[in-house]
């Protein structure tokens, strides 16, 4: 967590100055994560101390040097900023505050150093923030953490200053107080460096400064804002989060936090800080910071500590410490902080975690003000001072970010992903209990050693608290995200099928758990003891085997269920409806043939491609030659047309049912056929359909009866299956399920939004339940031109585990391929029908809540009519008793289903988890992506029950609670102003914010009601991989592709700041894909890719990449294709030219930025969260 931050910072720093040290730190971070973390924390503390101001960063980054000073400066700086911002850009601040300027000055220095440092590392953050100030300053100070210096002044200076300081703090704000101003400005350095320079490390100290600079502006927006956009930022925060970010609150608090400085701070983060800061910190901060010994720290390892630690390895904290003596030791940090209190700590502390703490503090300021970072910093710093010990801590932790945190100093998903990819690619063995799997973004091969592939099952935590209290305390939900039929890598083996004949699966007699590798055989193999409930069950004679000397069955390795985490059993009649073995499933293709459908080319397209792309690719059993799936065809408008395509017929027969009030299936024989037996008739049908309806004039389409008809058909044929419905418009035909147009986009984002996001009638919900009981899944492909009430229609998809696709303004020639790809993909990925999922857990815990697209008629069985490889459900597990630490916790997911060939089977996934009694263990073994996945689904549910505000606040509260818990229980004590993030969760604030900003959850009026509902529907069934990409889109630069490369270039953080005018970027989130073209992009590039002379000539209505024979074109298409291949849906490519009308839409996906609808930027959010945490801690 923190470490990460640190890490980032660290990096920065290391580079910069402490290079060595810090660097070490960095390196450390990554590697040593686990251990480190604590260290980090510790470090942060220290760092903070120093940091408080830039110092920290300094320290961190710069290593000791900066450290101290930075701190000083930092805090102050922050404050200043804080204040400043509100008013105006950093500069302004200065002016405003008399002191500020100086501070600024100081800042600069601090930053300067930082920056210098930064350059290498994270100076960015800091610098960025500091920006303004820094610019100039940076260089100078760079080295030193003078920032600190800045601090002092700051503090002293004015409230403003303080805020400022913070910023600078980082920088090395430590630097002399005088610096402060500069520090804050520290920005200056940053400025210079701005983005680059100190970014990370300083992030903290420097942060502020940087911000001031342009870059920072973004991030910190706030602070910088002052200079740049700060004010706004702040505003952003405040507003968005409610945080109080508002300059107002912010400031005051800050001041408090920092003490006076806090004030300034306050400006920044006010809210958050306020409390803490105000309290002690306030003045102290200032003082503190300076003393923060930022210098010291800085001196020490300076940047290192904080930065390093943070970065280094956050965990590596270790390194950091190493880096700095003080820091080096975890303890140190810990201590440091306290001891260092400010100064001292600062120095050292910084080392430690510098990051967080520093970051935080700085951040805080920054943040608040403009950005969170600052806050932190300040907060910390200030606080630190106030409380000697504490401060230290804080700084360490967050420090980095300074006021306006430099975005680069804030935990970066890109970095996290990259680190994980670097460290964990390859083979992942599931042998160990409770091993956290690699991230979903990492390519790895799973070797099933008794626990299932994480592709099937991921948990939010792999170390489960033993008690309910502990779990509650952590606020981390214990949730599983289950994709029972996830697609595996080609190198991985599908779960083997075990056929025990009439014996059927062997199960525990009491809890009915299925045989699995964790069952313990006793009595010489005659009985086995259930790992879930402890009951002993006799082994059926047919299943008996002797045990070897270790107590294992001799046939352990011959039986998948005794050695693997995932396998399938062939079910017996007892597992079938009415004890009759099922028939092969069926697909019914139901095509809207109304005027609209014909006109947009849909009918033609489907009929033309259905056979080639779909029917020939029906899913089949692995190894089977042909698909057993039955297919049937229906068209409809105002009435329903069924087709008899019996092979014996000379031509297809159409049976029209026009009694839509009471629909029924007019035929049995010849409706469901297999492709080979009726191929010619189907061919002729598909030729006929477009002709028959070419002059369709039908505009009133029905939908309810269509679904009823499909359901009836499946029922009467006694098959499970899917309906594929291709529908164009709101069903206004006079029939059951008729919907009225109730669209009112104005309601979105208001408390009344749930009225239009919930189904308008119960019809589809009830129908959905009927479908469920018949094993009929409904997939709807929508091709609307206008509102068609996705909220209502999607309900049936939700209940029946169906998918929904939406192609607005569909035109066959433009969107046809996309639709067909999706369709094909969908059909091929179908794996299970008429399924029931049951989750069993060890005694002491049990599944209590289920989220996703399915239906439950009781509290334990999840009924899913169909499961494809992309579908996931989330299950929350809670304690109903205690777990025993030594025994661990087990989860078994059993899916009873009908396979694509009509075989009734059970797929079993087992997962073993560890238990823990220490929160630290819990926090060390968390899986953030799964957490976010769960959180988003939970938010979707809230959307329909609560007001948007409550939903949003719930997420923020959760985020703050988790972090606060960590802070309180796991992190070494530090200043309250410091933001300390656990390594595994350091992206939590970012992702949390992304969830909040997501269109599906907080969509405002800028998207249509249907889109909103559609996204909600999608989100609800996302697996971890999809949600990960969905909430934090991938941004890939295309303009500088290496033509010879074959892999995807590394992604960038989603922020407008990162886009260059001469660049071209690909952005995708699994649902949409954009190519953004800067206005001064190389025309040659355009020519090569789009074969037009300038971006202006690209026909953005026809977004297709031409197949041009040149390397760039090849490479670009290759990238696009690779990206598409990774996603479940074929994303529509939209081309956005810089500054043209689509750009705002594109910007919408730059999730680190402030949203158009007032949603918080990353920085703002971080500040707010920090404030919340502080509130909680107090």
């Amino acid at each position: 967590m923190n470490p990460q931050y640190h890490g980032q910072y660290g990096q920065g720093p290391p580079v910069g100055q402490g290079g060595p040290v810090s660097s070490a730190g960095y390196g450390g971070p990554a590697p040593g994560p686990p251990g480190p973390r604590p260290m980090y924390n510790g470090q942060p503390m220290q760092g903070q101390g120093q940091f408080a101001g830039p110092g920290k960063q300094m320290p961190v980054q710069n290593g000791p040097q900066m450290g101290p000073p930075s701190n000083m400066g930092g805090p102050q700086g922050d404050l200043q900023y804080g204040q400043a911002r509100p008013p105006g850009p950093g500069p302004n601040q200065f002016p405003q505050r008399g002191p500020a300027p100086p501070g600024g000055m100081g800042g600069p220095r601090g930053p300067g150093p930082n920056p210098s440092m930064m350059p290498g590392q994270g100076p960015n953050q800091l610098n960025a923030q500091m920006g303004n100030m820094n610019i100039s300053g940076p260089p100078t100070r760079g080295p030193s953490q003078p920032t600190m210096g800045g601090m002092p002044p700051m503090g002293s200076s004015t409230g403003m200053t303080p805020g400022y300081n913070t910023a600078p703090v980082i920088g090395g704000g430590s630097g002399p107080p005088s610096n402060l101003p500069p520090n804050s400005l520290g920005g200056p350095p940053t400025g210079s460096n701005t983005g680059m320079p100190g970014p990370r490390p300083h992030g903290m100290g420097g942060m502020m400064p940087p911000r001031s600079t342009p870059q920072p502006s973004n991030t910190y927006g706030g602070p910088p804002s002052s200079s740049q956009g700060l004010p706004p930022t702040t505003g952003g925060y405040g507003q968005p989060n409610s945080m109080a970010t508002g300059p107002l609150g912010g400031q005051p608090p800050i001041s408090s936090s920092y003490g006076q400085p806090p004030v300034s701070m306050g400006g920044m983060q006010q809210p958050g800080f306020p409390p803490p800061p105000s309290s002690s910190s306030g003045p102290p901060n200032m003082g503190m910071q300076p003393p923060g010994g930022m210098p010291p720290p800085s001196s020490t390892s300076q940047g290192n500590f904080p930065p390093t630690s943070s970065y280094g390895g956050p965990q590596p904290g270790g390194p950091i410490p190493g880096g700095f003596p003080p820091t080096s030791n975890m303890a140190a940090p810990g201590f440091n902080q306290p001891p260092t209190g400010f100064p001292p700590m600062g120095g050292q502390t910084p080392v430690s975690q510098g990051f967080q703490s520093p970051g935080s503090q700085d951040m805080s300021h920054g943040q608040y003000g403009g950005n969170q970072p600052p806050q932190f910093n300040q907060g910390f710093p200030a606080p630190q001072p106030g409380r000697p010990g504490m401060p230290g801590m804080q700084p360490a932790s967050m420090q980095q970010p300074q006021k306006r945190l430099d975005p680069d100093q804030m935990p970066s998903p890109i970095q996290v992903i990259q680190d994980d990819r670097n460290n964990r690619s390859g083979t992942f063995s599931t042998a160990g209990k409770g091993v956290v799997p690699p991230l979903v973004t990492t390519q790895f091969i799973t070797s099933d050693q008794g626990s299932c592939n994480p592709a099937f099952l991921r948990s939010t935590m792999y170390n489960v608290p033993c008690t309910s209290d502990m779990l509650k305390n952590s606020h981390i939900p214990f949730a599983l995200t289950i994709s029972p039929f996830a697609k595996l890598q080609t190198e991985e083996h599908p779960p083997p099928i075990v056929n025990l004949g009439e014996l059927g699966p062997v199960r525990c007699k009491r809890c009915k758990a299925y045989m699995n590798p964790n069952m313990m055989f006793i009595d010489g193999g005659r009985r086995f003891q259930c790992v879930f409930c402890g009951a002993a069950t006799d082994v059926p004679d047919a299943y008996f085997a002797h045990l070897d000397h270790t107590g294992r069955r001799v046939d352990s390795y011959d039986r998948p269920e005794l050695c693997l985490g995932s396998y399938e059993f062939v079910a017996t009649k007892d597992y079938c409806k009415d004890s009759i073995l099922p028939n092969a499933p069926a697909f019914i293709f139901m095509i809207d043939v109304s005027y609209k459908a014909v006109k947009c080319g849909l009918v033609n397209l489907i009929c033309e491609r259905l056979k080639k792309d779909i029917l020939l690719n029906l899913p089949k059993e692995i190894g089977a030659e042909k698909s057993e799936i039955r297919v049937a065809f229906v068209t409809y408008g105002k009435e329903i047309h069924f087709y008899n395509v019996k092979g014996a017929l000379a031509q297809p027969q159409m049976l029209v049912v026009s009694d839509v009030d009471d629909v029924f299936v007019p035929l049995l024989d010849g409706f469901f056929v297999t492709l080979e037996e009726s191929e010619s008739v189907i061919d002729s049908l598909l030729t006929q359909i477009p002709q028959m309806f070419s002059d369709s004039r039908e505009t009133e389409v029905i939908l309810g009866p269509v679904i009823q008809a499909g359901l009836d058909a499946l029922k009467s044929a006694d098959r499970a299956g899917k309906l594929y419905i291709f529908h164009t418009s709101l069903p206004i035909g006079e029939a059951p399920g008729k919907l009225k147009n109730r669209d009112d986009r104005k309601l979105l984002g208001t408390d009344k939004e749930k009225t239009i996001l919930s189904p308008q009638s119960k019809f589809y919900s009830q129908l959905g339940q009927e479908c469920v009981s018949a094993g009929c899944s409904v997939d709807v492909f929508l091709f609307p031109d206008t509102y068609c009430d996705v909220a209502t229609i999607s309900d049936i998809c939700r209940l029946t585990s169906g998918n929904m696709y939406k192609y607005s303004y569909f035109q066959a020639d433009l969107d046809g391929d996309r639709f067909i790809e999706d369709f094909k993909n969908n059909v091929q990925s179908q794996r299970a029908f008429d399924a029931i999922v049951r989750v069993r857990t060890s005694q002491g815990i049990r599944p209590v809540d289920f989220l996703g697209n399915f239906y439950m008629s009781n509290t334990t069985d999840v009924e899913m009519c169909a499961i494809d490889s992309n579908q996931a459900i989330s299950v929350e597990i809670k304690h109903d008793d205690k777990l025993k630490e030594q025994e661990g916790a087990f989860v078994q997911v059993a899916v009873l289903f009908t396979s694509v060939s009509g075989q009734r089977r059970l797929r079993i996934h087992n997962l073993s988890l560890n238990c823990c009694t220490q929160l630290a263990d819990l926090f060390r073994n968390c899986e953030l992506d799964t957490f976010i996945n769960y959180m988003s689904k939970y938010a979707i549910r809230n959307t329909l029950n609560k007001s948007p505000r409550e939903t949003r606040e719930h997420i923020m509260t959760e985020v703050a609670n988790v972090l606060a818990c960590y802070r309180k229980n796991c992190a070494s004590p530090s200043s309250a102003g410091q933001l300390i993030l656990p390594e595994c969760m350091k992206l939590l604030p970012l992702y949390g914010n992304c969830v909040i900003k997501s269109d599906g959850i907080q969509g405002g009026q800028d998207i249509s009601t249907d889109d909103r509902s559609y996204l909600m529907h999608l989100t609800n069934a996302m697996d971890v991989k999809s949600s990960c990409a969905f909430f934090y889109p991938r941004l890939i630069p295309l303009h500088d592709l290496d033509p010879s490369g074959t892999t995807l270039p590394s992604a960038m953080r989603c922020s407008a700041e990162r886009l260059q005018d001469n660049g071209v970027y690909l952005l995708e989130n699994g649902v949409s894909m954009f190519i953004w073209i800067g206005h001064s992009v190389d025309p040659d590039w355009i020519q090569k890719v789009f074969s037009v002379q300038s971006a202006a000539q690209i026909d953005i209505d026809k977004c297709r990449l031409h197949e041009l024979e040149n390397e760039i074109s090849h490479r670009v298409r290759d990238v696009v294709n690779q990206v598409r291949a990774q996603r479940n849906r074929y994303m529509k490519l939209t081309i956005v030219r810089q500054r043209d009308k689509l750009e705002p839409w594109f910007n919408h996906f730059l999730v680190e930025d402030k949203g158009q609808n007032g949603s918080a930027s990353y920085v703002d959010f971080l500040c707010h969260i920090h404030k919340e945490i502080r509130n909680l801690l107090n």
Partner: protein
Amino acid sequence: MATYQEFIQQNEDRDGVRFSWNVWPSSRLEATRMVVPLGALYTPIKERPDLPPIQYDPVLCTRPTCRAILNPYCQVDYRAKIWSCNFCFQRNPFPPQYAAITEQHQPAEIIPQFSTIEYTITRATCAPPVYLIVLDTCMDDDDLQAVKESLQMSLSLLPPNALIGLITYGKMVQLHELGCEGCSKSYVFRGTKDLNAKQIQDMLGIGKGATSAQGRGQQQQQQQLPSNRFLQPVHKCDFSLTDLLGELQRDPWPVAQGKRPLRSTGVALSIAVGLLECTFPNTGARIMLFMGGACTQGPGMVVGEELKFPIRSHHDIEKDNCKYMKKAMKHYEGLANRAASNGHVIDIYSCALDQTGLHEMKFCSRYTGGHMVMGDSFNTSLFKQTFQRVFSKDAKSEFKMAFGATLEVKTSRELKVSGAIGPCVSLGVKSSSVADTEMGLGGTCQWKMCGLYPNTTLAFFFEVVNQHNAPIPQGGRGYIQFISQYQHSSGQRRVRVTTVARNWADASTNIQHISAGFDQEAAAVLMARTAVFRAETDDGPDVLRWLDRMLIRLCQKFGDYHRDDQNSFRFSENFSLYPQFMFHLRRSQFLQVFNNSPDETSYYRHMLNIEDLTQSLIMIQPILYAYSFSGTPEPVLLDTSSIQPDRILLMDTFFQIVIYHGETISQWRQQKYQDLPEYENFKQLLQAPVDDAQEILQTRFPMPRYIDTEAGGSQARFLLSRVNPTQTHNNMYAYGSGGAGVSIYIVIWWLSSHSVLFSNIIMSFIYSNICLL
């Protein structure tokens, strides 16, 4: 005119009319004392190839309340060019085109021999007839194949411009769109849900705007388009329809063991009616329903799905133990009324071993004048030839069917019409000719017959309204005019006018005149129709009692006997057969339900209700011919005494043709004497009844069941059940005394022996009557 016999025959030949009384009692009171009501059997479109084609419109009486048509009985003033109406005495000028009229130059309608004349209304549009096939697909493959072939064959018999449509049904009802290329198309309806015309119209997307767009040609054509999808000219779709029929499979829905197939006859028919109703109202159209079993679901359901519950029997009906019957009848009656009011005919071809619900569905045919055919299987010549005969043509190669007829009766003042019995519905039109009392469908002077064929005969009943003390009406004659407007199978609109006149006689003084004019055959048929009509609503025994009473009263009134001497009883010649007819009627399947299913009863009654006098008499009293070496074939008494070992009997009951070989003949035949050259005469003897039977088979519609049996054969029961069991019970009477005496004795014996079953009152009544005799 020599005899009444000849007079009657002549009138029948010319006008298609037979009256029960050919001299009418001149007062109401006298008329009621005649016992047998004054009635007429009128065959509206009796084949009259000799009629001149009249291509102009009839001349009507100008009195608005009269509107009678100029006829030979009108007095014509050739000089003044004026004619006076014989019904209302209105003097009417001839229309201008009659200016050239003189005594020598008369228009056909006033020439006496053209008391029946037919006008063709040329300005009326000629809509081609519509044939809508409604086919049950729940049958054996053999049956289905047979019916498919019959239908395919019928396509070639239809006029090419006729419109044809196809509905098939089983569990579902499918309305086929004809003439689709590449993909056959049909609309499917649930078999359990009744739909009204409006719903059908909506569901089929037809008839939209039919009300809004009256008259404009183009629009009309567009309107027709949708319906044309279902009803297409034969010449356009015969290929596709042939293919469609060829591909028809039996209903694919599985039938569980112990269940009947689900058949939605009620809905199918409802859709057919609804479709025609909204596409071709008031145009000649036939719905031809082919069903292979009873309706088992939905409205019109006759029997449940479970085989263990058999279809209702007369016994159940009596006990009021049939849960579906009333509802079903209501359904079908409703449909029949709708079809009738739109001028559409419903034919029912029912072939199954078990009952199919004709009892419930009888209204469909009765109200619309449709055919009702009952057989065992579609795969029999009975059905195949019957069906073929539906499309038989006359000498002018025009179909022997007509559509949408309206029959109006006008009477002179002393007479009023009190009702009609036959395949028609009342149009509820009041006029001065309508009597207060009702017989059959009364209260109207107009009836509608949606479908009729040359044999179709209606029974009309009249009431004399002259008061007892009033003088014999002026001129001494009463007049009745039957005006039938109908759509000829060629599509022409025609009007046939029959005007009849009969003398009045004062019964109190001239009873012998009146009794001489008695037509016992017509009277028997009229009584039979009346009895059957009553039987539909009344209790069976009540009807029999009523018949008995009427007979006894007639005997009392017109018999000639000495009190206390049974043997002295005599009837005049023209009454002599009447008791026999009544006797056979009493024990016929029309009134006796024992051993018949409700379906059979309905079927038999239906035929009696339609057929003309001759055929009706055969139904009432089967004809029995004897063939032997002793002479030429001769008619013999329908009596057990006629069964002789050395005779071959040929019995025609209308519904069955039975050839019965006497014991000896049968033995000879078994020994193959007929194959020996020296027994050529035996061969001829065997062949003779067969040839005669063939002759009957050729012309009869529906085709009778042909039974070839011999003494002791199981099928001999068909004969034995019909003959009069004299030999076993009647020895006490003078067997073989012949003539009317025998008959009446039989009747009397029969009445007495059976009346023990009746209540004491009846018994005493009958005994007292016997004493009278």
